[in-house]
């Protein structure tokens, strides 16, 4: 299984080595994934199970719609005065003994974290699940700096050991089944042994044995954070395995990387998100582990705390008046689990930032639509709307996709030679803009279409429409249109 490494942002071009091939468009990247039948079965099972659990967890909360509305409102307020909340956060973190670092893009974030790790002299770091570090391609950067990164979540560990690419925001190994994980552990985990069974208990025990001495040995840990509480300078992280808590408590130096969109103003706001996030992400009433940490405490936990605040296009998204609502996202992954496109392709065709419907908006919002790959993402949806129905902070993802498609088309209008698609769409609009032109074109088109048909079906269409007839017929137009019938019988 191949996939481009995460974090290949334009800003990383200063790196030496061969220039990587441009990322393929969604449709091309989806093709090999669609052919992987085992992955599709695994994803179908995983997303169906999560969908069911999430729906049940939301249904048992009488005020679910009020909670969603509250979540939306808190996030919108936080984003409206983001600069002042961030300043408050920095002040509070610093007063509590932590250090805040600002990173404008992925490259700067990688430099900051790599520098911090180097300064400790450590050659190994333990790391807990973080979509943000995946976004900036931190693991590769640390590896290049001679630092070994040990993923500590079971799924992340499996992805790392298998030299695989993650496919899901919360369960990076959702595309793998237990048999595949067990086989991998038997091969790559010394503590597992060749007789490892593929039941969940045995796999968890093998992972635990493998990780224990790494935790005890680790001097530096890298984590993400789900929320940053501005008033107290507190970082909050939700997880199900307890590995992140080990990272937060055992090492001497703790480096947390978080997007600037993770800020909430007050502790009271957590009341809402601690109900919304677990139910929307795994269908649990509460996540098994909720950790919060504020600065450093002598004799307890890490001696140094570094918070790296990442922009990486988030202020660019914030400047987009329709798109900014995407920054409400609390990374629950509910939209992935209901998306019929994601269910069939997995997360990898969505590129480096985030997978699924939310990735299809966040990536072009934060990176722009200049590259063909990023411009293809807003089209990776049928606009069926299932994602908007489940979003706990009410992000209207289909609306945003249509908005971004508009941006893609606008950016292509300036080209000296119009694309065939643009010529077609403009021609269509011109024809349809006038009833007489429309009627004449319809008559002509229907005649041609009937010539292409055999037995009432069109099996092959020319040009751009040929994509339709690759696997689907089109009915031949009947000899008389509705207009014709109306004029004959009613007018």
């Amino acid at each position, binding site marked *: 299984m191949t996939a481009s490494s995460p974090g290949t942002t334009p800003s990383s071009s200063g790196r030496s080595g061969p220039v990587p091939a441009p990322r393929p468009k969604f449709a091309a990247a*989806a093709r090999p994934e669609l052919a992987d039948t085992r992955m599709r079965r695994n994803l179908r099972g995983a997303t169906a199970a999560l969908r069911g659990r999430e729906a049940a967890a939301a249904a048992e909360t009488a005020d679910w719609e009020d909670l969603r509305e509250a979540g939306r409102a808190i996030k919108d307020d936080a984003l409206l005065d983001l600069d002042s909340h961030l300043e408050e956060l920095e002040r509070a973190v610093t007063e509590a003994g932590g250090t805040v670092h600002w990173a404008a893009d992925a490259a700067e974030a990688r430099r900051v974290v790599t520098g911090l790790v180097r300064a400790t002299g450590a050659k190994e770091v333990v790391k807990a699940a973080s979509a943000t570090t995946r976004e900036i391609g931190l693991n590769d950067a640390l590896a290049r700096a001679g630092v070994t990164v040990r993923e500590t979540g079971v799924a992340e560990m499996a992805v790392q050991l298998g030299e695989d690419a993650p496919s899901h925001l919360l369960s990076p190994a959702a595309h793998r089944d237990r048999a595949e994980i067990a086989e991998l552990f038997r091969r790559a985990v010394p503590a597992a042994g060749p007789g490892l069974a593929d039941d969940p208990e045995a796999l968890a025990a093998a992972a635990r044995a493998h990780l224990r001495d790494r935790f005890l040995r680790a001097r530096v840990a890298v984590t993400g954070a789900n929320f940053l509480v501005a008033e107290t300078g507190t970082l909050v992280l939700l997880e199900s395995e307890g590995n992140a808590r080990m990272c937060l408590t055992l090492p001497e130096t703790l480096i947390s990387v978080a997007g600037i969109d993770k800020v909430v103003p007050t502790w009271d706001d957590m009341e809402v998100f601690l109900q919304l996030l677990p139910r929307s992400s795994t269908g649990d009433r509460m996540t098994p582990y909720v950790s919060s940490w504020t600065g450093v405490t002598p004799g307890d936990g890490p001696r140094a705390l570094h918070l790296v605040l990442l922009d990486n296009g988030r202020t660019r998204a914030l400047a987009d008046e329709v798109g900014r609502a995407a920054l409400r996202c609390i990374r629950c992954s509910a939209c992935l689990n209901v998306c019929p496109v994601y269910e*069939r392709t997995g997360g990898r065709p969505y590129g480096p930032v985030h997978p699924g419907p939310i990735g299809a908006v966040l990536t072009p919002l934060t990176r722009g639509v200049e590259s063909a790959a990023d411009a293809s993402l807003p089209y990776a949806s049928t606009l069926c709307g299932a994602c908007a129905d489940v979003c706990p902070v009410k992000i209207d993802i289909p609306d945003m996709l249509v908005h971004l498609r508009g941006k893609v088309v606008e950016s292509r209008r300036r080209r000296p030679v119009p694309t065939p698609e643009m010529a077609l769409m403009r021609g269509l*609009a011109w024809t349809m803009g006038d*009833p007489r032109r429309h009627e004449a074109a319809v008559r002509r088109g229907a005649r041609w279409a009937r010539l292409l048909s055999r037995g009432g079906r069109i099996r092959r269409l020319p040009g751009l429409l040929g994509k339709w007839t*690759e696997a689907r017929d089109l009915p031949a137009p009947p000899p008389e249109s509705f207009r014709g019938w109306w004029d004959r019988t009613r007018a």
Partner: protein
Amino acid sequence: MRVALSVACFDDVLFPGTAKAVTVLLERLGHEVAFPPGQTCCGQFHWTAGYHREAAGLARSHSAAFEGCEVVVAPSASCAATVRDDYPKIARTARDPGLARAAEALAVYELTEFLIDVLGVTDVGAYFPHRVTYHPSCRSLRILGVGDRPVRLLRAVRGLDLVELPSAEECCGFGGAFAMKNADVSVAMVADKVRHVRDTGADVVCAVDDSCLAHIGGALSRLRGGVRTMHLAEILAETGPA
């Protein structure tokens, strides 16, 4: 009541039977049907594909074609949803308050909404002795919220054996330009939809959107699936031998 019929551009050419059926049905129920001749296309395809300037032009002429109509009925949930849900957005994007006002003045109903909510009819006197399954299209389900209206109408049809479609609320994979731009994913989706349709043992799969039915029917036809697609209106218009 005088009802203005809004016919989707591709229904006019590819599925004229749908609008004919609506005409016959409404006339049978004692209403007068009008077909405003100025209509061409609601602009949905351009809007969702990102051609927002072109969509605004089409939205203007579509609204103008129905100006002054007391009530407009569209046998296409997605076109009705475009006028009701997207026109305000198109007007905002084009900074066209005139279009926003014109769109707001249009009383557009999807067919099943019109029958049940406006006319108060559930039994339209149809007879259709076949096994039928119903696919709730995404825009009817999630934008218009037609709910179980189509199913209530189908249950009232004499002789009809309604069977439930597994994973009914999952998208068929059409999605306008998606079917071409992401043809492989689109086909993977419709393959599952077709499998579910065939699992029901139905003779007919129906919906309130011919666009989705063109997709499902196109795949069924290629597979010689042995299941017909019909718009719900065509079933409601059937009265059997007199």
